[in-house]
Each structure stands twice: as structure tokens, then as C-alpha cells.
């Protein structure tokens, strides 16, 4: 082999590797589309089992049999279920997700209007959950050997068992009703008016320069985010604690300690980065649980997000709304999954090698 061929071979090898890597990422992203489709199909099939007749709910009580038959035909309800699904899908692809029987309005704008509130809760919930989980996990690890470590971990274990909606109630009873520190109903004080610009309430307050409204919205968001955060923090603390123990067995930490680094630098600058990897994949795995948690939290705190919309739609058999919201939740879960995959790949070079 001559000397000029070799760099070329290396370069083309790198190119092939880069191409196969992006192909891998693309394939992972594309694979989510059929999954979303099957989720919509499963939801569609389940909702066909609803024991009420959607046509009867749309028609006035004195409608004739012929009118009912006409509307059924118009809605495609006299066709086979699979054809009905394909009709829904065709509408969905052109942005037409049907009409809500609660309001008579198209479903899509309704959902899009409610979505920012849920995303806000999700964002602040994840943020506070990460902070509390990483904090208590590191604290427990830093106190290893003392009584504090088993104490923190068993309190964590007890807290992990308590479901999200009970946390919501506990926080309302103690901090809301008992101590009256924080508001717990609605997104903002009833007297305040904020124009809808981006849909994200906090952002709109800032854009208006209305700091009073911003403070009120932030205060109203505190307890819901804390509730969601508590549910995320407990498993994070546990996983971080055990992965820190594992990371500390590795030679590179011993080497760093021998170089004379103090324990805090060791923990934060050297161990945390590696120990955080299982934590991030945990968030990816737990994404569906966390996002499901927003459902009841929104209802309890009276926040107009998609969870509250969903509970109302479920209560009034609003099938089109339920169908679109199920898809919205599924997409949100997939996005959080993609985000955690991406973060993992950025933090861990070992994952960047295509198999």
C-alpha cells in the first residue's frame, strides 16, 4: 500500500462512519412514526367501543331516522372501522382532526391553545425534579458511611411510593390551605389580564413587561411544578446514588484523588458526568409516567392545559378531542425520549459508535 492511499482510506472510513451514524439517528427518529400511527389506531379502535352513539349526540332529539342515517353516512360511520380510521388519518394529514362535540369548534386549535400550559408545567417540573433529585442523591452519597445516607435513602423510598395526585393534595392542604403561602387554583390571579401572544403565560407576561402578572403566574406554577418534580426527583436520587457508588469504583477517580483533588471537585467535576448517564436514560424511560402525571396535576390545580382538557373530553365522550389528545401525548413522550437520547449521545462518546 502506498503512502498516499492511506490517509484517503482513513478519510473515507470516517465519512462512512459519520454517514452510518446519522443514518442510525435518522432511522431511530423515523421508527417513531409507525409507532405513533399504531398508537392512533389502538386509540381509535378502543374509542369505537364507547357505549354511546356519536350521531345521537350530534342530532337534536327529534331528528328523523333518515336524517340520522344521512349524518352517519356523511361521517362515514356506516363504513367498516378500518375505513373510518383511514378517513380520520386522511383528515389528520391535512390538519383536520374533526370537531369537538363539547364546543362545536375544530379540535386542533383547542388543543394547541391548551398545550403551552402543559409544556410549562412539564418544563418546570423536570427542572425542579432534576435539581431536587440530583441534590438529594449527591447529598446522600456525600454523607456515605454516616447515618444520614440510609436516612435520606429510606425517606426517598417512602416518598417514591406516594402517587403524584396525593402529593398535589398534600401540598395544597399544607402550603396552600394550611400556611396560605402559595396560591393553588388557576394559572394566575383572577384580577390580572394578560393578552395571549405566544400562548406561554410566563413568556406573555414578560413580553408585556408586566412583572406583577409574571410573579403571580410563577407563584401559581410553583405547587404544580413541585408536585411533578417530587415524582421525578425520587427515582433520580435513587439511580444517581447507586451509579455514583459504581463510578467511584473506577480507576480514574482514584487517580484524580491521588492528584490531590478535594472530594467536592471529584464529585461534581469528575464523577457526576459519568454517573448522570443512567439518570438521563431514566428520564427517557420515565417520560411517559411523568407526562401522564400532568393529567391529574392540571385537573387538581385548575390549570387549563391538555390534561384538564382530556379529563373534560373523557367525561363528555368527546371522541375527536380524545383522539387528538392521545396523539399529542404520544408525540410529547417521543420528543422527550429523543431529547434524552440526544443528550446521552452528546455526553457519552461510547454511544456514538454505530453498531
Amino acid at each position, binding site marked *: 500500500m502506498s503512502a498516499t492511499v492511506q490517509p484517503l482510506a482513513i478519510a473515507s472510513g470516517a465519512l462512512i462512519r459519520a454517514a452510518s451514524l446519522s443514518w442510525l439517528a435518522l432511522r431511530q427518529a423515523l421508527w417513531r412514526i409507525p409507532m405513533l400511527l399504531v398508537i392512533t389506531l389502538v386509540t381509535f379502535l378502543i*374509542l369505537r367501543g364507547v357505549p354511546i352513539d356519536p350521531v345521537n349526540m350530534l342530532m337534536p332529539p327529534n331528528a328523523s331516522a333518515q336524517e340520522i342515517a344521512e349524518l352517519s353516512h356523511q361521517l362515514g360511520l356506516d363504513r367498516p372501522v378500518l375505513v373510518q380510521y383511514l378517513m380520520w388519518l386522511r383528515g389528520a394529514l391535512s390538519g383536520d382532526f374533526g370537531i369537538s362535540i363539547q364546543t362545536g369548534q375544530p379540535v386542533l386549535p383547542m388543543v394547541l391553545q391548551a398545550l403551552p400550559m402543559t409544556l410549562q408545567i412539564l418544563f418546570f417540573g423536570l427542572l425542579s425534579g432534576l435539581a431536587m433529585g440530583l441534590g438529594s442523591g449527591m447529598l446522600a452519597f456525600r454523607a456515605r458511611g454516616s447515618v444520614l445516607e440510609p436516612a435520606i435513602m429510606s425517606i426517598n423510598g417512602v416518598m417514591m*411510593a406516594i*402517587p403524584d395526585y396525593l402529593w398535589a393534595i398534600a401540598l*395544597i392542604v399544607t402550603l396552600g390551605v394550611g400556611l396560605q403561602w402559595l396560591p393553588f387554583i388557576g394559572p394566575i390571579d383572577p384580577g390580572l389580564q394578560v393578552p395571549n401572544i405566544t400562548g406561554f403565560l410566563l413568556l406573555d407576561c414578560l413580553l408585556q413587561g408586566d412583572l406583577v402578572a409574571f410573579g403571580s403566574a410563577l407563584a401559581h406554577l410553583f405547587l404544580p411544578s413541585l408536585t411533578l418534580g417530587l415524582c421525578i426527583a425520587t427515582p433520580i436520587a435513587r439511580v444517581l446514588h447507586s451509579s455514583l457508588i459504581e463510578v467511584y469504583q473506577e480507576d480514574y477517580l482514584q487517580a484524580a484523588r491521588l492528584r490531590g483533588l478535594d472530594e467536592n471537585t471529584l464529585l461534581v467535576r469528575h464523577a457526576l458526568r459519568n454517573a448522570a448517564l443512567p439518570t438521563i436514560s431514566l428520564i427517557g424511560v420515565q417520560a411517559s409516567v411523568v407526562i*401522564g402525571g400532568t*393529567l391529574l396535576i392540571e385537573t387538581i390545580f385548575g390549570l387549563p392545559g391538555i390534561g384538564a382538557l382530556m379529563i373534560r373530553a373523557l367525561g363528555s365522550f368527546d371522541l375527536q378531542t380524545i383522539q387528538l389528545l392521545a396523539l399529542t401525548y404520544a408525540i410529547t413522550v417521543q420528543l422527550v425520549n429523543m431529547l434524552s437520547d440526544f443528550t446521552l449521545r452528546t455526553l457519552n462518546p461510547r454511544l456514538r459508535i454505530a453498531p
Partner: protein
Amino acid sequence: MTALSVSLGRRTLARPGLLFGAGFLLLLTLLALAAPWLAPHDPNEQDLLNVLLPPLWATGGSLDYPLGTDALGQCVLSRLLYGARVVVIIMAIAPLGAALIGCLLALLGGYFGGWLDWLVERFVDLWLSFPAVLLALILMVALSPGVQNVILAIVFVDWARFCRVLRAEVLLLRRRSYVAASRIGGAGALGIIWRDILPGLLPTLIVLMAMEFSIAVVAESVLSFAGMSAAPQVPTWGGMIADGMGSLYSSPYPLLLPVFCMILTVLAATFLGQGLREAVDVRLLERAGAA
């Protein structure tokens, strides 16, 4: 063998969490069974002259209603006792159903492999990527309210959890030499699954079932809190919590008492699950022995 079972018994007794969990759930079961005799009132009987009475120990409490009354004047103690029946039934049946379906699919996919395995794995992926609460709620809209439908919904949602773990276990067990020996000895697929694979799955299965107790209780309480669980005339703790939220400012007891029961039950189920897991899990055992 006897030494092992003796040490298993001792390990069980040495775990206060396990004892508390098992003891509390046993007590709950007995209370639920005896509800018609223990309850001072019919759970749906409304005494509109005595609404929002405080419990016995608070000022103004009366012996007629030991734990007070809710906003409709219904006896909180009676409703808690009858609500415990739903909890116990769900805890007894839903994990069994989810285990049965999850195990069946795990064996089908894991043992036979091929396109069947691919399909099972994809469905598990799909199920775990969708919020469980949401799937159960949508299912409850399609089914009508009722305890048996709640069980159906929980089974329909939670089989995937079992299937994921058990399938991985089947894949490992299938490659063991004793399975190969059975196959060489002329055993059929069903015989191998029944005699060689299933006994090997048992420890994992017990652990998963134990963990499912608390998951099923929480799932039911979420459904009944959202008003989509048992028929309206059947009292449930989740339903009581939702009703209690409405009268929170007038009297906190109709809210706090069911919340307290719920938390105790979930903790007991969790402790039972963790305790069983530590007592049964061979890998944890080996680690403890090595240390």
C-alpha cells in the same frame, strides 16, 4: 433445601418492612371482608341533618359517626370500609391477570423467537411509550364503569411491564444447558416451557407481582379520583378524595381520612413488594453473601 427454606423464613421475619406490609394488607383484607358487620351505617345512607361532622376525637364529634360525615352526611367510616373492598379485590386480581398475559406473551416471544418475538417486543415498546394513566382512562370510557372493568383496564395496561422483564429472562433461560439437555432428550416445546423455563421464571415473576400490588392500587385510585372507576353507588377511596376536595374549606376530615388510608395502603404494598423482592431475589442474595 431445608436450610434454604429456614433461612428464607428467617430473612422474611428479619424484615420489618415486609412484616408491616403483609400485616397491614391482611388487616385491610379482614376489615374489607367484615365491612357489612363493622360499618355502623349503609355507605350510601345520607343524613342531611348531620353533614360534615368531625370525627370522634375532635370537638363536636359523635359516637354515631366515629369518623364523621362527608358533605352529603354519609358515614366516612362506613365508606372507608366498603371502599377497602374495591382496593382488596383490585390488589388480588389485577396483578394476576397482568402476570398471566405478560408471562404468556413473554414465553411466546422469548422462546419461539422470530417474527413473533419482534411483534411482541414492538407492542411492549408501544405500550410503555404511552402514559399508562391515559390508556387506562381511555379504556374506561369505552368500557362502562364497574370493578371488573377497572381490573380489565389495569391488566390491559400493565401486562407490558411483566412482558418486558420476563422476555429477557426467557431469552437467558432458553440458552441454559439443561434446556438443551431436555431438547436432546426429546421433550416438546410445551414440555420444556412448563418444566424447565417456567420454574426458572418464578422468582422474577413473584417480584414483579409484588411490585404490581402498589401499582394496581394507585391505578385504581387514580381512575376513581377521575370518576371513572366503579359504578357510582360503590364507594371508592379515590372517589372520596375527589369529593373531599370540594368541602376542603368547611372540613378537611372527609379528604384527609381517605388520603391517610390510601397512603398507608400504598406504603404497605410497596414495603411488601420490596421485602419480597429482597427475600426472593437470588442475585441480591448472592451479593449479600459475597459482601
